[in-house]
């Protein structure tokens, strides 16, 4: 089967496609998130680690890690749509970028918030200037800067292009954030309060985290599509197909 991708780069066709995909992603999101959280909360060991065990409170990672992963990934998505928009000059790419930003910011905030909760029990403090927390905070500032710049410019075209450029500039921070969390060499991470490494995570716990991540990812799809539909309707309010749509809705 050959799909004509350019067909869906038109807001009018994408609007209906997104409308049909939202329920699917919402169902997948609910199922996977619930399954992952159940797995994480009830099917994993109560204690973690050897000499200095973490008790029940470590279970915040089943929300914290997926949120942190998605906060970074959604920024890459945001920058990706911005780059596509700047290169190909497609309106829909900018709309997707605009729709992605709030979700990414929320995940960044959740990652910070849950990290802070975990730090309270584990480190005995709500906040520590650990590279991980600090770099997530910078990421939150990047998202806020993107949204602030976009909303400050009245001309939609300039707002889209300017904030897209800003998103690309901010992209240089993503590798720094990623490696400040997954430090490749323990000798170079003296400033880290506590090490975290993917390859030392128990497979049972890792899979539970991955399932929740997929669930939250599906959630992002659903929410971003819904928000993109809103953006499309606002921007295309004068277009004929939107008027037809409103007329059809009014009739039904």
């Amino acid at each position, binding site marked *: 089967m050959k799909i004509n991708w350019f067909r869906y780069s038109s807001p009018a066709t994408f609007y209906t496609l997104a409308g049909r995909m939202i329920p699917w992603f919402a169902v997948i999101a609910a199922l996977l998130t619930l399954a992952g959280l159940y797995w994480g909360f009830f099917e994993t060991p109560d204690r973690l680690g050897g000499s200095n065990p973490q008790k029940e409170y470590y279970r915040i990672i089943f929300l914290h890690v997926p949120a942190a992963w998605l906060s970074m990934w959604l920024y890459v998505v945001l920058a990706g749509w911005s780059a596509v928009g700047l290169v190909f000059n497609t309106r829909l790419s900018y709309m997707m970028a605009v729709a992605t930003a709030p979700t990414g910011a929320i995940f960044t905030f959740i990652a910070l918030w849950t990290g802070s909760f975990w730090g309270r029990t584990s480190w005995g403090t709500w906040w520590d200037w650990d590279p991980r927390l600090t770099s997530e905070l910078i990421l939150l*500032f990047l998202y806020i800067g993107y949204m*602030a710049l976009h909303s*400050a410019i009245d001309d939609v075209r*300039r707002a889209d292009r*300017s904030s897209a*450029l800003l998103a690309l500039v901010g992209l240089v*921070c993503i590798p720094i954030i990623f490696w400040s969390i997954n430090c490749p060499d323990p000798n170079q991470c003296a400033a880290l309060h506590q090490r975290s490494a993917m390859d030392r995570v128990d497979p049972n716990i890792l899979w539970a985290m991955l399932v929740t991540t997929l669930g939250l990812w599906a959630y992002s799809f659903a929410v971003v599509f819904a928000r993109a539909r809103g953006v499309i309707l606002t921007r295309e309010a004068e277009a004929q197909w939107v008027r037809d749509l409103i007329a059809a809705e009014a009739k039904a």
Partner: protein
Amino acid sequence: MLRVFLCVLGRDITLAMRRRTDVLTTLFFFVIVVSLFPLGVGTERETLRILGPGVVWVAALLASMLALERLFAADYDDGTLEQMLLTAQPPALLVLAKVTAHWLLTGLPLVFIAPLIGLQYQLPGEAQWIMMVSLLIGTPVLSLIGAIGAALTLGLRGGGILLSLLILPLYIPVLVYGAGAVTVSMIDLGDTQPYLSLLGAFLLLALTLSPLATGAALRIALE
């Protein structure tokens, strides 16, 4: 190409020299902000030594940002900027010249006034040298990164506040390593070279990428 660079550079410096208040306000802003801290947190020798590097760098960040608003604003208002971009010269070159002029007028004076600030904060001699060197490498990075923000917020309502929101997060690495170099130089056996090398790396990276991004941002702002 060099001739164009020098021409824009000379023009910007001449313009600034005709209106010296702009240059001096930035410098005095820096001095005043730095002088306020001892009054607020107490004047013990040890406290000041710990605070010194960070305060100087944060003040340098704020001073550089304060001056950024004027980087393109005047040329944008009277249409000069548009005419410049209409010429056959690459926008990155024009941007680089303007940023260089901006740094010479607002960044470089901070480097030379730094020892005076160091005395206020009881910093030892070697730390003062390191502070000058780190400011010398770091302030051009601030001007270069800031230029992107200045171009993006050109002609917007409340551009100044927005500019700080966009630019300050990107300044953080420079702040960390700039202040870090000075702090480390006060420790016995502390090695400042990695900090200065990283600052140098930031400078090279900003020097190659920032003019291109700023040029693109100016084109977006002016179209």
